[in-house]
């Protein structure tokens, strides 16, 4: 096996036991790593009882996986997965962190966590030395404090235990904040203050397992590859393509906080009541005022799209975060009626510190804002007024969510589940205001204007619900299609360095140079990626235990998007229900699902997924 370290760590937190696990060449060739392999393991281990597995119970499995291309394809990431407490399916959720590199350099392709610890713990890894350590002193601490303590402790441990002359570099760390500890379904697995595996809600899974953090120092090289010269040659071509990019390098996605609203009319404004704005106060030139670093990135990245922003004066002084990126600008800015860089940076730094997802939290905050606007939630429910643009009020509500205080306890369940609960409490249909798909708050790229990259099928048919980084798209080998993104999430590297069509073409050669496996686009889009997608779809449809999805009603876009846009150049445009139905049918047909959205028997059998077919037969009967 080339490109792989060759073994995985399996940590049972209930019994505090650690062992090494290997997967066959055949399994790895089929499922690669990251998202693909996580889906396969979940199917094998939990598939037959999926509906009863509580994502926040000890039965769930949590994965921190690299892939064979991690460290070789420019822009290293780590894939977090398991049964998602948001969708009750599986999400491959990736984040930028050097932990992916340290892990491979320590000799592991990934970590599989099972069970749940009795008291808070963290995992410490130095090459083959693996230890489950007490984390009671950091339980309850925010992200910045947690990381500070763990970097210091980690270096002390390395210094004391391994008497090697010279300074030890910092180990890398992924962790959860207070929101994860409180099992908020909006909680992230985080790294480096601002990096998040957000979609999926795996911070809550870590919290349920009482696993505060993972700290790794690997001192070996990255694993051997099949053809190093060719690997580095192709990697270099991909680098060069990305060095030529201007917008993403110069401004990151942060140019879009203004641009997507003003030019595409697809940015959430006040809980998606609008998708257009022309607020020049929110231009990236105004953000640039508070940047202290213009390029920031992760291991091997040519783009370095992050920028570091610090508020150095005024009432919000002290907040530090990245630019913010577009999603956080939209969800913790325009979606809350906040149009100042300071307000947005403050909110973004706050969710970082609490370990909350900017998208999911901004989605539920916007939802609460609209319920307040409509008088469904009142000052009595909240303890204060919640007016659009009021940074302090939204910040207070964010803290209540992280701590599960008052109404925050309901909102911590995420927009979809909160809507169900509030509908019941207030005797209204709050789902009308929930902008979600399959329990996942939808990324900040709307479809009503038809100007942005997602289409009608994108969120309705994605196996990761509202995830804007994994959208359904036709043709199935489209540059943004879900089958293509499965390759990035399974090889585990950053999507952002592969927007360019030439870079996308280079990936097959890189995959071969690293692994020695010749996987053609035809193999991938026709076979390998489909296996992963169908298994993800099957697990999403099996769902449970608290909510399940029916394709007929849930392969759809939120009710909000059937309402016409009220402002801007695309005023009056709304989603046409017939168009959604048509797009959905076309997608089902192209991908191999029947007219009810269930993977077809012949398709599953063609791919050797007889066991999946058996479980789908139960659904076909009841559909």
């Amino acid at each position, binding site marked *: 096996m080339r490109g792989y370290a060759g073994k995985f760590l399996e940590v049972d937190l209930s019994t505090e036991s650690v062992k090494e696990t290997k997967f066959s060449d055949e399994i790895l060739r089929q499922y690669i790593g990251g998202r693909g392999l996580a889906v396969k393991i979940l199917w094998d281990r939990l598939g037959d009882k999926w509906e009863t597995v509580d994502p926040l119970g000890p039965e769930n499995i949590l994965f921190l996986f690299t892939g064979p291309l991690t*460290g070789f394809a420019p822009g290293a990431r780590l894939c977090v997965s398991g049964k998602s407490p948001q969708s009750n399916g599986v999400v491959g959720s990736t984040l930028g962190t050097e932990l992916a590199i340290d892990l491979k350099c320590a000799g592991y392709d990934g970590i599989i966590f099972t069970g749940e610890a009795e008291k808070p713990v963290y995992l410490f890894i130095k090459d083959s030395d693996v230890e489950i350590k007490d984390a009671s002193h950091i339980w309850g601490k925010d992200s910045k404090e947690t990381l500070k303590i763990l970097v210091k402790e980690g270096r002390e441990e390395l210094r004391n235990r391994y008497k090697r002359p010279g300074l030890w570099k910092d180990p890398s760390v992924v962790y959860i904040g207070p929101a994860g500890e409180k099992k908020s379904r909006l909680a992230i697995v985080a790294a480096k203050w601002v990096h998040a595996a957000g979609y999926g809600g795996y911070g809550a899974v870590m919290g349920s397992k009482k696993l505060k953090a993972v700290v790794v120092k690997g001192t070996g090289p990255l694993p051997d590859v099949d053809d190093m010269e060719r690997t580095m040659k192709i990697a270099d071509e991909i680098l060069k393509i990305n060095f030529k990019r201007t917008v993403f390098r110069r401004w990151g996605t942060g140019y879009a906080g203004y641009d997507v609203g003003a030019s595409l009319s697809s940015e959430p404004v006040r809980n998606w009541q609008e998708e257009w704005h022309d607020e020049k106060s929110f231009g990236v030139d105004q953000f640039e005022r508070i940047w202290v670093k213009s390029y920031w990135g992760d291991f091997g990245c040519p783009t370095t799209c992050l920028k570091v922003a610090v508020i150095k004066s005024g009432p919000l002084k002290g907040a530090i975060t990245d630019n913010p990126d577009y999603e956080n600008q939209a969800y913790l800015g325009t979606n809350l009626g906040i149009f100042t860089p300071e307000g947005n940076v403050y909110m973004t730094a706050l969710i970082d510190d609490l370990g909350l997802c900017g998208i999911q939290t901004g989605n539920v905050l916007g939802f609460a804002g609209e319920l307040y606007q409509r008088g469904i939630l009142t000052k009595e429910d909240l303890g204060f007024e919640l007016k659009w643009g009021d940074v302090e009020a939204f910040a207070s509500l964010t803290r209540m969510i992280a701590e599960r205080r008052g109404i925050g306890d309901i909102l911590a369940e995420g927009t979809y589940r909160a809507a169900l609960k509030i509908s019941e409490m207030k005797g209204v249909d709050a789902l009308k205001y929930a902008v979600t798909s399959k329990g996942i708050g939808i990324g900040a790229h709307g479809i009503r204007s038809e100007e942005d990259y997602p289409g009608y099928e994108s969120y309705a048919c994605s196996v990761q619900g509202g995830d804007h980084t994994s959208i359904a798209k036709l043709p199935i080998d489209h540059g943004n299609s879900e089958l293509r993104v499965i390759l990035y999430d399974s090889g585990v590297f950053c999507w952002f360095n592969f927007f360019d069509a030439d870079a996308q073409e280079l990936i097959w050669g890189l995959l071969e140079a690293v692994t020695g496996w010749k996987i053609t686009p035809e193999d991938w889009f026709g076979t390998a990626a489909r296996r992963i997608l169908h298994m993800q779809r099957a697990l999403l449809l099996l769902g449970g235990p608290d909510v399940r999805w029916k394709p007929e009603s849930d392969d759809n876009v939120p009710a909000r998007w059937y309402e016409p846009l009220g402002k801007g150049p695309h005023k009056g445009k709304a989603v046409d229900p017939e168009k959604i139905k048509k797009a959905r049918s076309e997608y089902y047909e192209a991908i191999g699902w029947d007219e009810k959205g269930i993977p077809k028997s012949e398709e599953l059998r063609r791919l050797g997924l007889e066991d999946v077919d058996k479980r789908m037969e139960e659904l076909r009967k009841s559909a």
Partner: protein
Amino acid sequence: MSETEHIWIARDYSKCSGCRRCEIVCSLSHEGKIWPEASRVRVFMLVPGIEIPHLCVQCDDYPCVDACPVDALSIDRETEAVIVDKEKCTACGRCVEACPGKIPYMHPTENYAVICDLCGGEPKCVEACAEGGWYALETIKREDIPTFKLYAKTPEEITKNVIVKLYGEEWKEVV
């Protein structure tokens, strides 16, 4: 004054993107592998956003060379870089103790110290940094003033300086 021109790797930490391309090209060039822990330049990140590429500054008085009990360290005539004789070095760590910035460290699997050799005069790390337009590391002409040695500082000391510049005075105590 020396007759040949010598280079020096100037460092502007506030420009470091943390991409660690320097570690990648350095380890590829010296080890034939991507190996951050064996790179002659190591990027410390004691606080996120404060990335510190840590590498030899070629002190004018070379305390590491003086401190070596087995004469494993020498000064390259062409570049004035410190050269480690892998056969002679015993990995005793005296060079680390002698270095004002505690910059040398031991190879993770072999028994010798690793120190930046300036790639014979054309440092790969500088090329990689320039290619990406970051310019945290830049080659400049070395002159005969003691200032260069001042850059031999520990990652903790450097982080303290940079963090005050980037994040503000109140962050000084964090490191």
